């Protein structure tokens, strides 16, 4: 018999785009695979609903593996309880530091990134050339994690560090601070609509310091909404649609064919998660937990990011690229301009006793 997967992700409301990408990528990867049965539920981006759904997956659906959660806070609500009950959890997005360090678990596999990863890579890549950097992020754990990641690796001066309200839409005050500061460069993390608002307003302000950030603010799903204002911005990610590794071009084409839009990093992560699962299911019976775990650990699949393996704490070891936002005809998209970090893994693994 095959593997039953419970996917809990955000499919309704404002944050649905990310969940839909993860779901579609995942389904694309396991399409036609009879070994894998998928049950999907919508968490509405509410932690308590996610917890309920996890209970449902475990108690009623009797799934073997869970996946799908987009947001750190929902992951924190669901993952520990699920893994404690012997289920496998594959994270297609979100990697809170707590689950990478002391809170790591043998059944928890992160197929995306630890929250700090992109900004650590950015810190490395920008060191030396960027001069003084102005940091900005929303005031919540993921925002603080990501800025901490940047500061950990950046070897240069931080001109200022500003934390904004989560969900803020007007950045006039921050932009004025940027203008007045002696920073040479802006590094920011503002996911979703916050990033769109900031980039548009920044473009209209006449401040012309270069901007960069982790890929979340420059992903395919939102670049269309930012438009030309984003062109030229640098960002770091483990994947890009022009990444020249086996299988990537096919994935991009298949995704576009199937869903009529370009894949985002979330779609790529969902896809990789699906591939990982399929690779393990082909090797081991999920009822034999140790064997299945070992099969997952091997990560024996062709990731669309190229080389991919798990560190001891079951978090990825992967390359992270520097991308630049460009215009291809009418399309605003990313192009790889360099490698920001090779075989990057997170610093929390030291606290994990796996």
């Amino acid at each position, binding site marked *: 018999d095959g593997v039953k997967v419970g996917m809990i992700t955000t*499919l*309704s*409301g404002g944050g*649905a785009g990310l969940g*839909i990408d993860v779901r579609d990528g995942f389904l694309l990867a396991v399409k036609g695979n009879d070994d894998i049965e998928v049950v999907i*539920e*919508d968490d509405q981006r*509410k*932690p*308590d609903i996610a*917890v*309920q759904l996890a*209970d*449902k997956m475990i*108690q*009623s659906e009797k799934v073997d593996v869970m996946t799908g959660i987009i947001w*750190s*806070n929902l992951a*924190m*609500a669901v993952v*520990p*309880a699920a893994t*404690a009950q012997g289920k496998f959890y594959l994270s297609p997005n979100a990697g*809170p530091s*707590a689950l990478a360090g002391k809170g790591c678990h043998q059944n928890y596999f992160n197929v995306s990134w630890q929250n700090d990863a992109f900004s650590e890579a950015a810190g490395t890549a920008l060191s030396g050339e960027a001069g003084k950097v102005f940091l900005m992020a929303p*005031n*919540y*754990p*993921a925002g*603080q994690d990501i800025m901490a990641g940047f500061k950990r690796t950046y070897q240069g001066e931080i001109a200022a560090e500003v934390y904004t*309200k*989560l969900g803020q839409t007007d950045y006039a005050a921050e932009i004025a601070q940027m203008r007045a500061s002696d920073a040479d460069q802006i590094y920011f993390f503002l996911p979703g609509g916050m990033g769109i608002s900031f980039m548009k307003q920044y473009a209209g302000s006449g401040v012309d310091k270069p901007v960069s950030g982790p890929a979340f603010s420059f992903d395919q799903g939102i670049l269309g909404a930012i438009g030309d204002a984003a062109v030229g911005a640098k960002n770091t990610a483990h994947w890009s649609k022009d990444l020249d590794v086996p299988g990537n071009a096919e994935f991009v084409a298949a995704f576009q064919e199937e869903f009529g839009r370009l894949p985002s990093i979330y779609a790529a992560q969902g896809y990789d998660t699906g591939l990982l699962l399929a690779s393990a299911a082909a090797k081991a019976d999920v009822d034999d937990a140790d064997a299945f775990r070992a099969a997952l650990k091997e990560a024996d699949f062709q990731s669309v990011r190229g080389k991919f393996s798990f560190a001891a704490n079951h978090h990825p070891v992967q390359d992270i690229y520097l991308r630049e936002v460009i215009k291809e005809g009418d399309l605003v998209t990313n192009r790889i301009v360099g490698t920001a970090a090779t075989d990057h893994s997170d610093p929390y693994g030291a606290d994990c006793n796996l």
Partner: protein
Amino acid sequence: MLPERMLNIIAFLALPLVAVVAVVVDEPFTITLATRAAILALAAVGLNLALGLGGLVSLGHAVFFGLGGYAMGILASHAQSFTPLDLGFVMFDGTKSMPIIWLVAILVSALAALVIGLLALRTAGVYFIMITLAFGQMFYYFTISWPAYGGEDGLSIYVRNSFPGVNTLDPIQFFGLVFAVLAAVLWLMGRIETSPFGLAIGAARQNAVRVETVGLSPFRLRLVAFVISGAVTGLAGALFADLNRFISPTMFSWQMSGEFIVFIVLGGIGRLYGPVVGACLFVLLEHMLSGVSDFWLIYLGAVLLLVVLFARGGVIGALSKEGAAHD
């Protein structure tokens, strides 16, 4: 058309019936759903005292729900990690015992309700709605950016707390416990509603001047109702945290407060069992519709809309002969 009393009995017994059937056919998740419904009902029953009887439309009851939840989370996490909680004047080891947690949840939320009530009850009507919302938002943003207990990420309590004589890890036993609390609170609320206090607070909703001229202070009546109401919702918060074994700032969000109001209006304002029926129905709809399509919220919206437009007095009002309990 049934008499309202019959409906109430049916509504009340439906929950344990579902839970017991779920045990028989081995569907533990259904028990979890029933437990969730019962706890949300309890929170809304609390609000109903202020809102239905006292006319105090609080859009900030999530404050008490959240405080109950954080009382549980903080006590249990300290007990779990064996790090005492330093309150400045005493050190406290934390606890995993439900009765103590409940007591703390009730006291903390009652205290908060007292303070918020003292300030908010100076206003009335829509202003009251908004000032309670303001307090809710303050707590919400505070907990989001307060790192000690997880900030926005929230806090997991991996093992459910204990109650003497009950195996709380067993879904049906935990349900039984929750349901017993709900039953007790409903009984209490029923008594309060018909008591002299209930008569007076109900009259204060309709005509404060009238209450004053018979020598009663509407402010004091409302404050007491608000405190009791907050305490009950706080207790529900502690239970909710225990159901999920998890707390997070969303317990403080205005959407949470809004949902409590939705339960009450859905079931029928001014009815003792209104919140119970409303919460059960809402949980049921949420559960059944979410599988239908990605756009299931449209259907949920449509159902709610139909109820407001065509079922005056909520679901109970529509099904019983009595119609609107009051306007």
